[in-house]
């Protein structure tokens, strides 16, 4: 029996597979495909204080090795989510979830994080400072070390649950940003959010996304994610959740060897609703084949 468990700042997952924010809704639809309790956990859709429709249509574009989205944090608002969606999760998921928390001001981040902190459904807070699809706020917090430090510190002071900061890959150097989070008391990091990309319809001569640019996710970003997770692993001591283009058990192990203590699966869920289930089932078999008895032993092992 392979030991797949992994420890995220005290939150013990039975396996390292977590569904990524924005690609899993609040889990309900997936629960109608399979028993989602087989997952290590899942991240809920990013929440802002006010309900948001998000960006104009169209907001999805296909790419050869992934997709672009310019959703723009569509959600029912943090109060509603805390009162309804989080409660409902209990009906089909028995483990703690990870709440993806967004905001446009420091105060809003704190308010939303507190709502997540108070919910018994939530085991860990993922601070999203990397959404490429909202103009002010979001990514503005994720690209400057001083602003990031300040935000993380403030949120940490306001909540009790572990806080992981989800960083953007659209930066010249991830290391100072990772260090700022650690210095500010972040319990962990999540890497990576989407790369900024664009597609144009050559027939209509228009950008496919109404917003022109959007977040690029899926298999095409995997090599960038592996590199960034490894860079962060080499400069901070706090745990890292690795994501970006993972679509198999082999990708999962590769990301963990780069330094990830757990992984998130995003776009793969959208393409195949059974993606996470397949990975959870494949993982122990592949570990056995590679002589891995305890998955936590391979974290950052790559030489």
């Amino acid at each position: 029996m392979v030991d797949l468990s992994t420890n995220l700042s005290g939150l013990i997952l039975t396996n390292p597979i977590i569904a990524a924010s924005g690609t899993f809704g609040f889990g309900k639809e997936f629960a109608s495909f399979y028993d989602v309790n087989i997952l290590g956990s899942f991240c809920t859709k990013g929440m802002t204080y006010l309900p948001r429709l998000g960006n104009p249509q169209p907001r999805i574009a296909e790419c050869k090795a992934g997709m672009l989205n310019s959703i723009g944090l569509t959600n029912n608002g943090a109060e509603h989510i805390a009162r309804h969606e989080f409660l409902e999760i209990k009906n089909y998921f028995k483990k703690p979830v990870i709440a993806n928390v967004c905001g446009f001001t420091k105060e809003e981040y704190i308010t939303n994080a507190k709502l997540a902190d108070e919910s018994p459904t939530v085991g860990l807070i993922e601070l999203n400072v990397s959404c490429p699809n909202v103009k002010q706020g979001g990514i503005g917090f994720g690209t400057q070390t001083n602003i990031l430090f300040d935000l993380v510190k403030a949120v940490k002071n306001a909540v009790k649950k572990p806080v992981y900061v989800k960083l953007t890959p659209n930066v010249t150097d991830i290391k100072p940003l990772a260090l700022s989070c650690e210095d500010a008391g972040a319990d962990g990091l999540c890497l990576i959010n989407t790369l900024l990309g664009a597609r144009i319809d050559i027939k209509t001569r228009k950008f496919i996304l109404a917003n022109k640019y959007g977040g690029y996710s899926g298999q095409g970003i995997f090599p960038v994610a592996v590199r960034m997770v490894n860079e962060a692993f080499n400069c901070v001591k706090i745990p890292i959740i690795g994501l970006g283009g993972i679509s198999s058990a082999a990708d999962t192990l590769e990301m963990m060897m780069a330094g990830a203590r757990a992984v998130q699966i995003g776009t793969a869920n959208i393409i195949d609703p059974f993606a996470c289930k397949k990975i959870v089932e494949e993982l122990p078999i592949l570990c056995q084949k590679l002589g891995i008895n305890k998955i936590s032993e391979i974290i950052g092992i790559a030489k």
Partner: protein
Amino acid sequence: MKQALLKIKSTVPLTNDVFKTVLEGDVGTLKAGQFIDIKLKGFTLRRPISVCDFDDNSITIVYKTVGEGTLALSSLPKGKILDVLTELGNGYVITKIPKNAQVVLVGGGLGVPPLYGLAKNLKKQNINFDMVLGFNSDKEIILYNEFLNLGVNTVVTTADGSCGVKGFVTQADLKNKYVFACGPVPMLKAVYEVCADGQFSFETRMACGFGVCQGCTIQTTQGFLRVCADGPVFTKEQIVW
């Protein structure tokens, strides 16, 4: 909402660039107005296509080859197995038709096929209705004989007048009618303006097709709704243009 492996039973061209494909297998329990989402080898995202006709173990779809994906689909050989998500979307709700309403089904172009399953169903339930089908020209007319064979009073309009009434579907009298409409947005809008009430089928670019990514979400009078899971059929009072 379920995943199924369906086998291509047949693919036949209806026009230059419109094809009819029949898929066989465990298709689930379907309703007219619902759609399926097809995984094609070599393409990242699935392709959403409305159900045109169905029975317990087959689905008929009618689609236009507008890009690489639909082109690939149209050229797959008989016998090929496809990974399909089925039972997607809400579908048309017949029970919402008000008593004594005069029902008209209005389809434009590739909005015509989804109305076929609905027409069959209305027939079965002995609900009277008329059909108005709009096309650009006579070369693009599809499914006309199928509707005639159902014994439905069917008016065809063509933009260039090459067949039937010249003009758009709104040439037909839709005032005070309860409509089921499916077609391009300008058509839906025009029908919305004149009809009394009805159900309108929408399209957006979709990523998941089963309600988890918010890619398809639009503003409605009832808040933000997902075209894939809360639609694609919306009632007149839900619509915000």
